[in-house]
């Protein structure tokens, strides 16, 4: 598989930029699906419902080799076409490709998809700044203080500046795994700045137990003075937030789709009230509504055509709000189809419930996204 991918990626590079076709996107989708079946499926087993983190490095290594996970190194397989690779800065098709891959990964394991997403974002910002990094264990924090981004934080950061010379920035949250490098984006008096640590020695990470996506959420503190910051443009930050939210929406769709398939399978097997439950009207209602919501969510996510970062940010905010809400409803309904079994770890549907609710809440819960969208509209 690795050989096939290398040949495929080399051909793509030789063809030049911005040349992804629908067929290429389909190939990447197949490739990711294949990776999920052969490798990623081992990550979750009955003893590790949230993932066997001891084998994660080898799975990450493989995903990097075949170009699914992006590294900020020009020789890396995923540099151009991996999740949030370089091409996403210029090509709408590359964005669609990233979203599709995330969705496929999430249908097997949302935690891994989220990790690939975070690594892609971290690599993307490094690629934009021409900084090379050859690892794939990131810690990424996109904002400060306690709450998810408000409009003022993202679009007018200077009104929300924090002191960067403070040796301790408490309550800084971020996502990652076993971090080898960390990227922290904070608003300062002149706009946005990036703190880049190529080793974790200067940042103290404390793992936080969470509802879903367990093992990926950290509270961070700096254990030395911050001296060097790298200014980043508003355009970069808008793009970063847009990618962040779009990726969350894509992962949500992956989770919802796999929950729906599991529910459909279960409905064909489970016998209640004198027949298999697929014949029971209340189950049909749950499944019918779920299917409609998944299709609506997909249409909402993949309907963008904008390459302008501000317009993309708008679309991403809408997607984060609507897609995660719809997908959360889908997973809730699918869990209900399983009855008591859905609540147990054996069927894996409870993890999907936790993951989807976590995705709906982090990085801008529906409550904050509504305000964000309203403020964007008011500004216009």
């Amino acid at each position, binding site marked *: 598989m690795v050989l096939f991918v290398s040949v495929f990626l080399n051909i793509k590079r030789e063809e030049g930029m911005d040349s992804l076709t629908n067929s290429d996107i389909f190939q990447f989708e197949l490739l990711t699906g294949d990776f999920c079946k052969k490798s990623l499926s081992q990550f979750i087993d009955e003893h590790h419902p949230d993932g066997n983190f001891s084998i994660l490095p080898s799975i990450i290594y493989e995903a990097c080799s075949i170009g699914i996970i992006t590294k900020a190194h020009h020789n890396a397989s995923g540099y151009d076409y991996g999740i949030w690779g370089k091409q996403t800065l210029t090509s709408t098709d590359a964005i669609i490709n990233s979203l599709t891959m995330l969705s496929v990964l999430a249908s097997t394991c949302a935690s891994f998809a989220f990790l690939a997403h975070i690594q892609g974002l971290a690599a993307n910002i490094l690629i934009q700044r021409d900084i090379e990094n050859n690892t794939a264990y990131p810690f990424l924090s996109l904002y400060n*203080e306690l709450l998810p981004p408000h409009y003022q934080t993202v679009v007018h950061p200077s009104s929300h500046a924090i002191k960067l010379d403070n040796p301790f920035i408490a309550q800084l949250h971020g996502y990652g795994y076993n971090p080898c490098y960390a990227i922290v984006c904070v608003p300062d008096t002149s706009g946005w700045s990036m703190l880049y640590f190529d080793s974790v020695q200067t940042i103290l990470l404390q793992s936080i137990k969470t*509802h879903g996506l367990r093992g990926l*959420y950290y509270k961070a503190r700096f254990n030395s003075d911050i001296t060097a910051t790298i200014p980043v443009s508003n355009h970069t930050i808008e793009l970063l937030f847009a990618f962040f939210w779009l990726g969350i929406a894509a992962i949500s769709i992956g989770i919802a789709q796999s929950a729906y398939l599991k529910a459909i399978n279960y409905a064909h097997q489970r016998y209640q009230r*004198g027949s298999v439950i697929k014949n029971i009207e209340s189950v049909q209602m749950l499944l019918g509504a779920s299917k409609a919501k998944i299709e609506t969510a997909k249409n909402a996510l993949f309907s963008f055509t904008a390459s302008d970062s501000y317009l993309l940010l708008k679309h991403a905010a809408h997607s984060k709000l609507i897609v995660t809400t719809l997908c959360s409803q889908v997973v809730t309904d699918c869990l*209900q189809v399983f009855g008591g079994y859905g*609540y147990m*770890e054996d069927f894996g549907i409870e993890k999907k419930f936790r993951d989807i609710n976590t995705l709906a809440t*982090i990085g801008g819960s529906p409550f904050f996204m509504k305000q964000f969208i309203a403020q964007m509209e008011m500004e216009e």
Partner: protein
Amino acid sequence: MFTDNYLSLRNSKESLAFLGKLLVDSKYQSLWEYDTKLLPHKVQKWRRKAKAFSQLYIRPLSRTVDIDPYTFDPNPLIQEATRWGFQTIIMPFPLGSAALFPYLRSTTLQVAVIAEEFASECGGLALLLLAHHLGVAPLLLSGHIPTWFKFLIPMYIKGAWFGKPTTMAFAITEPDAGSDVEDSIGAKDAHTQVTATPVKGGYILNGTKVFISDGGIADRITVFAKIKGQGIDSWTCFLVEKGMKGFSVGRREKKMGQRASDASELIFDNVFVPKRNIVGKLKGGWPLNQNVLNYSRPVVAAMALGHARGAFERALQFCNLHTYMGKKLIDYNEIQYELADMLIKLMSIRMTIWRSCAHFRAVQSLSSIAKVYASDMAVEVCKQAMEIMGDEGVAHEWGVEKALRDARLTQIYEGTNQINRYAIIEHQYTTDVAINNVIS
């Protein structure tokens, strides 16, 4: 922000006439207190007692037990709850500790009131304590006086006087029959497997029950089984005691929430149950089961309310402690709006539950309405609490995400909300629709 507002009714009442002042509510009293005062005096006492118990014994355990429920020893907590009288509150004196006169007005209200308090601190520990009542209920509702004398009175005396608890569990769910056996239409075709074969002096039980709350720790279990070769209308309730030959506890399920309470598999391999351990009448199990569910659904609704209230209280505390852009979160209008919305839902859930408990006997549709409405609303409130807390909402340390996990189970057990909707309409069908048909 609000307390020093000179235009608030409380602050501006001085300009009213004397009698006008008397008609202004100016007590600094929480809504919890207002609600408590609606209850009969003895029930008020139970509510206050349950709140104190929850804060004293349940709160300190809540988070650690959720993370590691497998090494937790529940006996000290059960013993303490028995000493306080909570484990016999489903029955009035001389069978239990419930206040008699309020009990004669409502059999379920006192349990529902303590369920809310327990669940507001921890869903798992609440279930651990309350599932016992579900096991006791068939004994009580069988109306069989010898059974009361044989089992209930000694259990009360042992618990209340000597502080030695007897934990009970209720076993109906089977691997191939879950929601089936929780509504009367589906039950006709249910694939129940646990059978009782008549032998001299008693019955031999065979089969497996699953997802039994407190099944792993119970001293006695009320088990429902059909007579071999017959249908579900032959269902009979048997009292199986720990240590009976052939009875064993299988795997303990790994649940998403309410983790402090076990949900265990019970295996019956040629278990001999003497005739004296039949609860109520032979083949009287089906109506008994249905009636137990009608009595327990308002309590499940109260648990859902407790989960939601816990989430709300923690979100309120969070918003009061944390600032955003130099201002306390609770001082933002949009946060106040959301919190108010959550409180409206909590109040409406509580009123629905208390309304469903307003009859001496549990009414099928009222119990199901309370259960469905409370559990659906509770999940919504927990999600709202998570949302206003942002990324902190998903962190385990605040307990709000745990409340959501706990609340989600209330939409499933005691009949899924879909099955409960059938129960609601079944009641209407046999009353309003039938009456209209007769008239027309």
